[in-house]
């Protein structure tokens, strides 16, 4: 069914593309929002990805790869959007921890803000790998294919992303503890 729609859209059928876009846009919108954490930027990224998909659809050689291809376009659009605002945010240098030096922060995660703060500190590429794997439930080889990186790189990128998230949560936990115990000056 989808293949038929893609074939028709490749030949310029707007209705077919509208059906494809309609079926995908909620998923793309959510993924873009998760990567960018900004409603307007997410909208722009989705729009850019879908417009580009329409424009370049005739160049897609394998219609069965439409979903993966659109995900790739979305990731690229999100990274572009993120870079556009990169200069306006404060980057915090994080060091990945091999083993937690504090009690496991996961057990104490009740605060979604903590996760969001940790997530926001990641580079767009690392956010993308997390969203593709942990939100869209794509296996790591599919993530690698979408991002155009070797499987080993995708694995290490995922590992690094999660490590940095944990480091960020650890740092947050330390600050909380210090605040509670009045050690911050």
């Amino acid at each position: 069914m989808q293949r038929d729609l893609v074939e028709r859209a490749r030949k310029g059928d707007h209705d077919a593309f509208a059906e494809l876009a309609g079926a995908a846009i909620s998923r793309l919108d959510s993924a873009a929002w998760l990567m960018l954490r900004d409603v307007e930027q997410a909208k722009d990224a989705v729009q850019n990805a879908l417009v580009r998909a329409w424009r370049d659809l005739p160049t897609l050689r394998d219609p069965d790869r439409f979903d993966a291809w659109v995900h790739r376009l979305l990731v690229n659009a999100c990274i572009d959007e993120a870079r556009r605002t990169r200069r306006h945010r404060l980057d915090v240098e994080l060091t990945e921890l091999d083993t937690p030096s504090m009690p496991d922060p996961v057990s104490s995660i009740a605060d979604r803000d903590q996760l969001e703060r940790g997530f926001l500190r990641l580079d767009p590429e690392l956010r993308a790998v997390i969203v593709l794997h942990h939100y869209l439930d794509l296996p790591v080889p599919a993530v690698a294919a979408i991002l155009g990186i070797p499987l080993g790189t995708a694995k290490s990128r995922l590992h690094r992303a999660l490590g940095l998230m944990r480091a960020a949560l650890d740092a947050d936990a330390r600050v909380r503890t210090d605040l509670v115990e009045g050690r911050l000056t």
Partner: protein
Amino acid sequence: MTSNERFEQTMSSWLREDGAFRVADHLDEVLAVTSETRQRPAWSSLERWLPVDTTFRPRLFNAPRLNQVLLVAALLIALLGLLLLAVGSQRQRLPEPFGPARNGIFVMSRDGVLYAIDPTTSQRTALALGEGFDFSPTFSRDGTRFLFLRSDGPLTEPAILTMMVANADGSDLHAVTPPTESLDWFDWSPDGTRIAYVAKGQLWVADPRGGRPLMLPDAKPAHFPTWLPPDGKEIVYRLEATHPTVMAIRPDGTGRHPISVTRANNGYDFQGIGVSPDGTKVTFTRWSTAVADVDRNGWLPRVYAMDVETGKEMPFPTASGTGQVGIAYSPDGTLVAYARIHREGAFQLVVANADGSGNERTLGEKKPCKPDGSNIDATWVFTPDGTALVVRYGNDDSAATHLLPLDGSPSSILLEAGRFEFADVQRRAP
């Protein structure tokens, strides 16, 4: 369950909850934009029709505004000139397949018609080649024949094209391929006895005299087939894959082997393959986030020359925050031309030393493009005599071809802009 697994589970739950209630309310906006956006035909990509190093060559001057009488007279003179050229060329010395040559006549396509242009008078003559939408003329390296692509009737998608060959004067017109879907990228062999081309990712070798083309089954999926100078014993091409490779294969389909030794960073590596005139280097563009030395943010392309024997890659110097794309060698192999990409969203052509020693000189105006240089609507190549760069600015819908002299003298537009406008210059013996 380990703490890592618990953490990943927590992460997944958080993402699902956070993304679950988003309602996409802008589908109509997206569709409004796409309804106004033209699709890019698969067959009309500049990369497909304009091999930077081989098929796209010059075209000249603005045609002077003559009145009708003078124009008719000039056309007759030009026709006579072409006839004389055809007769005379059989007795003239032919140029070597590579190296500097004299500029001969120009052949160009515009709106489906082929024209011959005399560079000394700027007069153009429509070539009577029968019915069909004809475009992308390309001379053999000795300048005695040219090939072009023909669509019988309006161009459709996917395009069904036939490769045609004719003598330089337009005589002895014949087909060298059957009508072929997605015929794409082609190159004359150095001795002019074969033409390599790609159709639907399959590499073929055609005989310019006609007959059934030879399929090279080991060369698929392939792109950018280019004969390796000086003798054309091998065809270099890009093996299409998630991680492409630069490969070489003999024209009889045997002896396939890799040339590149570095693993491609991603599917965008090894774009726009070309060769140096002496056949020792293969040039290409990397388009990869892994090219960190161009820009810390990545996403800028960069051009390389790779040693055919060792696979060692040489980048060309560039300023921080700028990229490069689309490298072409001068006929004598001492210079290269590429586009410099500026992060603010512009590109400009640059000529530099081929040995990578720098000395970049800009040519022509800055033109807009995306900040990552991914949508440059231009192609360029040196004239056979190496004194100028011929640049097509635009796309298949509308393009104008400029002649940019390397000595800095004023540039000229060769002909008014048209659809499917392509040009090539005949090489003649020095």
